């Protein structure tokens, strides 16, 4: 992997990267099947407020499915997921409550192509939070400035590069002022040059103390910002550890194999 050091660690001061004792997400004995296929097996994961988790693993290991369960994009069949004290059930109202609190960024951005960048960002605040339009515009411009593309506000998604679109997607999620951000392989569909600009934004976000769960293969990013790296294989969590021991001294042989594969070149 080429992107080991995206920002020089000496430049960035640690900032408020402290982890509180409060629990943001609590996943207990989570099991999920696609028909007969057992995709998630007895997942137990507790994420504290301000914690940044990187989930990695080979494709098909269930890592995307795991984070998509957290905001109910996928239904689980057994176990429980609790977000900010609200337990996820099939109750649509509770699902909407949780979704308001949980922002998500997708691999393929999923911006709304028929709306401008600004409208993409203000849509949910206006309709879900009933925020006045002027205020929503101000909030959106603030976040667009933070992801460094305020000048693109009146363009349409199709006119932006992939990296820019992904940064808009991050801004769009942030406009809802979420407590937790989920990233589902945010850089996998990007050119190497664009990966850096997106990761920079994510590093920046991590330093504000946002609770983040990232499914990613960017090991440099994991080393730099993660409190914990979770490695999954065949639907279960195989190993979970702080980044330093995880990368230098992996315990499980599957983890060792995986790391040797991706760090080999």
């Amino acid at each position, binding site marked *: 992997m080429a992107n080991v050091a995206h920002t020089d660690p000496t430049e960035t001061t640690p900032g408020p990267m402290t982890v509180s004792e409060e629990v943001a997400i609590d996943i207990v004995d989570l099991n999920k099947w696609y028909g007969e296929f057992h995709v998630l097996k007895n997942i137990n994961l507790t994420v504290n407020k301000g914690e940044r988790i990187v989930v990695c693993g080979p494709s098909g290991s269930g890592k995307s499915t795991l984070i998509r369960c957290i905001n109910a994009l996928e239904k689980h069949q057994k176990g429980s997921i609790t977000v900010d004290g609200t337990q996820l059930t099939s109750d649509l109202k509770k699902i909407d409550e949780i*979704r308001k609190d*949980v922002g998500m960024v*997708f691999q393929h951005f999923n911006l709304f192509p*028929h709306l401008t960048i600004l409208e993409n960002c203000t*849509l949910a605040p206006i309709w879900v939070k009933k925020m006045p339009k002027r205020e929503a515009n101000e909030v959106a411009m603030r976040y667009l400035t933070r992801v460094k593309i305020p000048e693109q506000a009146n363009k349409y998604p*199709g006119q932006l590069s992939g990296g820019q679109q992904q940064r808009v997607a991050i801004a*769009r999620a942030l406009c*809802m002022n979420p407590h937790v951000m989920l990233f589902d392989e945010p850089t996998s569909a990007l050119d190497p040059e664009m990966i850096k600009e997106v990761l920079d934004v994510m590093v920046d976000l991590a330093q504000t103390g946002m609770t983040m769960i990232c499914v990613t293969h960017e090991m440099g990013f994991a080393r730099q910002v993660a409190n914990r790296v979770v490695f999954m294989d065949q639907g279960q969590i195989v190993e979970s550890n702080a980044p330093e021991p995880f990368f230098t001294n992996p315990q499980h042989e599957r983890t060792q194999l995986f790391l040797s594969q991706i760090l080999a070149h």
Partner: protein
Amino acid sequence: MSGTHAHTVPYVAETHYPAEPAPVSTTGPIAWLRENLFSSWLNAAITLICLAFILWIVPGILDWAVFKSVWHAKSLSECREIIVQTYGEGTTGACWAVIHERLGQLLYGFYPVDQRWRPDVTLLLLITAMIPLLFQTMRPLVVVMAALIGVKILIAAYLAVTENTLGSLFGPTTIVAIVIGGLAYFFGDTHHRTRWLVFTIVFPILAYFLLWGGIILEPIPSSRFGGFLLTMVIGVTGIAGSLPLGILLALGRQSKLPILRLICVTFIEFIRGVPLITLLFVASTLLNYFLPPGTNFDLILRVLIMVTLFASAYMAEVIRGGLAALPKGQYEASDTLGLTYWQGMRLIILPQALKISIPGIVNTFIGLFKDTTLVAVIGLLDPLGLTNPIRSDANWNGIVWELYGFIAFLFFVCCWGMSRYSMYLETRLRAADRR
């Protein structure tokens, strides 16, 4: 060093090539001709053959339809006499006199002559109701009304010279046109659009009141409706009703609720599996058996319901195609942001799905509009239904081309208009979001 040795030696670009204009021979009208009409010998031959064919057939048609046609006559035989007298033995020409004489009937059916301003005004209001849906500003409405007033003045001037009357220059339509045109001129900007849309919502009630009468207007029974008026009533109602109904059916068919889905699927498959004529017969005769005795609801109303239901089933499938074409990520992004189902549909999914479906939607509209002629089968006198009584009139016995040609022309103008508008809309929406 230039690019000459690029492939033979290690190469580093030292010059930056500026963009140059394309060679003259590849742009402009000559290049277009060469590329599209004369690109090969075969192509050139086909072009010439087509040209020859056009030159052969067009003068003949023009001769018949325009130069040797007759506009004023009392019967077909009189027409033929005039043509033979003017252009000599053996010449044929169009006898448009039948259209001239029966125009009122073809347009309004048996709607009382002194009340025909009511459909006219309704048409103007229909245009007024449609413009804010179709365009961003009310400018087109100003143009339409100004053109209408202009035409009316020209006709009045012509009549003043030939018949020493002003015709209907000061009739209700002129007044309505001036009022609406004036309003559209002064309050036609985008930010007034919502107010015009309020009128669009009120319009159906207004149209019903104007056409069928009541309160202060003389009531007109449905049996007097006919001609192009009937076509418009059925066509416009069907179009306006089938789109929202089709959207609901398409969403219902995609729903996660099994019973709702079952109902929608059954409805769509049943309606699509049955010919429209069958449904119209059900509307005209069978329905009476099912309804409690003594209920008598209007035949046109029954036809309207059937036509709308029929078109909405087709519409639902067209829109389902659009919904299916959207990437799953759009649904997920809308869910993730916490939008409710209806918010997501209205703000995210439908605007995109409908845009994809425009060609199919307009296709269904056009099909529906032309299918209105089928009501002739159950005895309603739409333009096509009127051809039989006209042709069985002793004066016009034997007339074919002129009558059907005129009706075809009316339908063509409407359908072609819809087609052009859909192309305009597609271009406008494409310009708005370049992907």
